[in-house]
């Protein structure tokens, strides 16, 4: 296990410097929209919180941290403030492959497509699409989180933004529940799948939904994605733990102990595999973990966009 303080200090310094956990300009990270005609005005802003776009970088860093965690060098990783710092920066600049970046970017593009096809009155301004800061909250740096969240909330409010359309559970929880508490500013927050009106009649397909902890439990939002699947005519194969009792994929431990993540993930994978159906995920961290574990999985956005 890595030294939590070293990791938190690194992430906090990066968020202060660049407003994202990687210490590199967000404009390098956020490129999914470049060849899409965007509306810059509308009723609600699409707010990705940069989570999907970050996963290729997080995965590469984690892979290398994992290799070190079990190695002879682990003992020196109490020295660890240098190792994670080195890997996080390197991960950002060199390690994420174009293929991985395109894969996760395409999910955000699919979300954009679903919203367009559903006639949602929305807009996107890449320069206002900030990382929410959620990792600082999760890791215990509440002051760092509150500082960053206040900056984001103030910037959005100054532009007159009141309604947000979110795409992942962590950002949704941050904007819906944590921001009002720590910044005093509230937004009307909806996930893209609550707004989806895509319909089809694909009676031949059956899938298993993996509820992420934040949608299933914290936000009690597991009915909405099931409705989306119903509207496509697709059947559900229930998994042993779901909804408010869903099982964690282990993702949140990734930055301090990739080994622990692997243990928890293994148990969830067994539950999901027992259904025999392909898995649909709704969180980029869950999806990345499930794919890495060899599960046949895709993101809800990919599935729905195929019918849009």
């Amino acid at each position, binding site marked *: *296990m890595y030294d*939590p303080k070293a990791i938190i200090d690194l992430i906090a310094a990066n968020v202060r410097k660049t407003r994202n956990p990687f210490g590199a300009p967000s404009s390098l990270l956020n490129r999914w929209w470049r060849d899409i005609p965007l509306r810059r005005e509308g009723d609600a802003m699409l707010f990705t919180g940069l989570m999907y776009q970050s996963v290729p970088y997080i995965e590469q860093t984690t892979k290398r941290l994992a290799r070190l965690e079990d190695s002879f060098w682990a003992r020196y990783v109490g020295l660890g403030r240098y190792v994670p710092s080195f890997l996080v920066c390197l991960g950002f600049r060199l390690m994420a492959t174009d293929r991985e970046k395109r894969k996760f970017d395409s999910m955000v593009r699919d979300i954009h497509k679903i919203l367009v096809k559903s006639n949602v009155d929305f807009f996107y301004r890449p320069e206002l699409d900030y990382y929410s800061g959620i990792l600082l909250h999760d890791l215990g*740096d*509440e002051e760092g989180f509150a500082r960053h969240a206040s900056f984001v909330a103030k910037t959005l409010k100054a532009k007159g933004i009141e309604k947000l359309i979110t795409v992942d559970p962590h950002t949704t929880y941050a904007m819906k529940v944590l921001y009002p508490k720590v910044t005093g500013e509230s937004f009307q927050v909806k996930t893209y799948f609550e707004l989806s009106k895509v319909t089809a009649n694909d009676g031949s397909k059956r899938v298993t939904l993996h509820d992420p*902890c934040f949608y299933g439990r914290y936000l009690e939002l597991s009915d909405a994605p099931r409705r989306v699947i119903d509207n496509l005519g697709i059947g559900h194969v229930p998994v042993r733990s779901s909804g408010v009792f869903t*099982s964690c994929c*282990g993702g*949140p431990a990734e930055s301090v102990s990739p080994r622990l993540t692997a243990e928890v993930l293994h148990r969830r994978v067994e539950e999901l595999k027992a259904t025999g159906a392909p898995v649909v995920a709704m969180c980029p961290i869950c999806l990345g973990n499930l794919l890495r574990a060899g599960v046949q999985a895709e993101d809800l956005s990919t599935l729905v966009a195929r019918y849009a």
Partner: protein
Amino acid sequence: MALVYPQFAEELKRCGVETTLECFNRGTCAAICPLIDEHFPRKMIRYAQVGARDKILANARDLWRCLHCGLCTQTCPRGANPGELILGLRRLALKHWRRQSHV
């Protein structure tokens, strides 16, 4: 031997924890927790209740094993919010470490 701080629950309030004394040690949290590890988070909660601040700080790294998955909070029969208590203890430990590194 451990030193105990009777005012510890008050200190934790400043870290956002309002439920330190709610727990009656039923152990549901340790049974449901995916970490399956030495009575986590129950042991930490017990330390917090009796004010064993030093014990918590000595074992603080373990707090970051918590996945923040919320299963313990969902199933706690007392509404003692164990997951948020662990998060509050992280805040406490981080503050402590940061103070130390400024000395």
